[in-house]
């Protein structure tokens, strides 16, 4: 009896989902991948053509058993979609064996469609094979770009001469950048003047050293790179360097937060970091040599206005080993509010009180 009454109540409420306005249904569909979103077209006549206005497209070979089916899907979506409607985000994932010509053909189709429909966010995961397409990248609407090459060896290679004035976020993973013409490049991604967030992870520069010079850059993350480089960014606020070998020359007077993790190579800071407030230094396996300890002390001495400092036990250990370097100097940390130590394995510290005095 109860279930019967329940059924009647549900039917009286009716179909709340279909009675939502179109833009809310599209918003809900944007949380579902494109393939399943298109399947809603059989639900009822109301749903038949809603998917054609979806602003988000994602194509992934993971969802299809063969490349031929994937290719048919891409064609079907691009031709079935309403042409006047812009896309806001396109995601393209191609994993698995595919011939270069196939990759070129399909990526060309997707990129052309995206760029001609004022795409704002583009996410491409692909192996090498798409160099020529990416090198002629030009878009006035693109704001966020993510390129993911699959492995370090099979990375996407592309010259960084894109022409994207609106680009604010760029993330590259396993990408090899090479110079179009011989000689030093003017600066990485120099045509993207509005770049605010840049992340380079496992990227390789063909000419050995990178040169980042951006007036508006405010967040920079460099991870897993073999080369050092120069960073000149007047408005940079947050800098994160992880597992990067090579010496970095940084000129970032307005830096507010610095995170350094990895083997220690001296960071050459050209100007005083007056605004630096948060520092997080995590050194893995530093050598016990005096020279390294000296470099560490020099770096710590530059951190005048630091308020929040986080170190790992290795740094403390080195400072204790070479306590003579710091024992007759006053502490540079005039404004320190908090000092945290990364939890790690506990190393017995013989001269804790010296370090405590320093800090």
């Amino acid at each position, binding site marked *: 009896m109860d279930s019967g009454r329940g059924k009647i109540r549900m039917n009286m*409420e009716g*179909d*709340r989902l279909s009675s939502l306005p179109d833009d*809310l249904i599209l918003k809900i569909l944007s949380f579902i991948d494109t393939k399943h979103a298109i399947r*809603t*077209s*059989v639900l009822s006549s109301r749903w038949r053509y809603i998917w054609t206005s979806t602003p988000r497209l994602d194509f992934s070979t993971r969802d299809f058993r063969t490349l031929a089916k994937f290719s048919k*899907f891409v064609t079907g979506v691009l031709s079935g979609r309403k042409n006047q409607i812009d896309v806001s985000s396109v995601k393209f994932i191609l994993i698995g064996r595919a011939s270069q010509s196939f990759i070129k053909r399909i990526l060309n189709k997707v990129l052309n469609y995206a760029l001609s429909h004022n795409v704002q966010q583009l996410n491409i995961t692909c192996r090498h094979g798409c160099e020529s397409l990416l090198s002629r990248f030009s878009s006035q609407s693109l704001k966020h770009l993510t390129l993911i090459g699959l492995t370090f060896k099979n990375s996407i290679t592309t010259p960084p001469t894109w022409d994207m004035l609106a680009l604010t976020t760029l993330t590259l993973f396993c990408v090899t950048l090479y110079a179009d013409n011989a000689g030093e490049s003017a600066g990485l991604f120099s045509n993207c003047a509005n770049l605010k967030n840049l992340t380079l992870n496992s990227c390789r520069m063909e000419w050995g050293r990178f040169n980042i010079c951006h007036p508006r850059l405010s967040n920079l993350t460099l991870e897993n790179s073999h080369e050092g480089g120069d960073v000149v960014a007047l408005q940079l606020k947050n800098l994160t360097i992880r597992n990067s070998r090579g010496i970095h020359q940084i000129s970032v007077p307005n830096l507010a937060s610095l995170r350094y993790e990895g083997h220690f190579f001296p960071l050459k800071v050209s100007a005083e970091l007056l605004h630096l407030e948060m520092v997080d230094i995590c050194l893995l396996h530093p050598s016990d040599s005096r020279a390294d300890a000296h470099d560490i002390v020099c770096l710590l001495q530059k951190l005048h206005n630091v308020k929040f400092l986080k170190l790992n036990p290795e740094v403390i250990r080195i400072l204790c080993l070479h306590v003579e370097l710091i024992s007759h100097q006053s502490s540079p940390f005039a404004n320190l509010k908090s000092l945290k130590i990364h939890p790690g394995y506990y190393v017995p510290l013989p001269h804790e009180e010296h370090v405590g005095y320093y800090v």
Partner: protein
Amino acid sequence: MLKNLNSKHIQRFSYKYLPQFPISPNSPKLGFSRSQIANYRSNFPTTIMSSSKTIVLRSSDGETFEVDEAVAVESQTIKHMIEDGCADTSIPLPNVTSKILSKVIEYCKKHVETPNADEKVAEEDLKSFDADFVKVDQSTLFDLILAANYLNIKSLLDLTCQTVADMIKGKTPEEIRKTFNIKNDFTPEEEEEVRRENAWAFE
């Protein structure tokens, strides 16, 4: 000195410090309006317990809710109304019932109290709050979607839409129809045609 204070002095004193509070014997208003209290509070913060500004929201069924301004401006709609100066007495929300409005206020309060969830604990706590928040019947869920859309609260709209999307994901069309009571108004031929049209999505 107290002896010398007469009503004339008090009147002048009040007029000087509360320009928006005219004491006229012919004034029909009794009591203070909310903006007058707020103005008084802002001029004499030490005499009142809390000096934070509060906003009054009125639901479609006439119930009023007093919330901190910081909580109310989670809604971009309310924020713009305040900035445009339409928030003098109370803000009417004719599209939101009191039941839904109280839930929305609960959501905004929680999210304002947990600023930049930097700490892991705070982030986990917020996530579990969100997960419990959407464990409601379908009718309430859709009302929340419409309210979040009308009030322009992005995080709540994303949360509720994601919940509905999770209910659609992974289901066959028949199961989706059953879950949401969608009436299939296709004839069998029409349905077949649609499936053929989009066959590449049904692979």
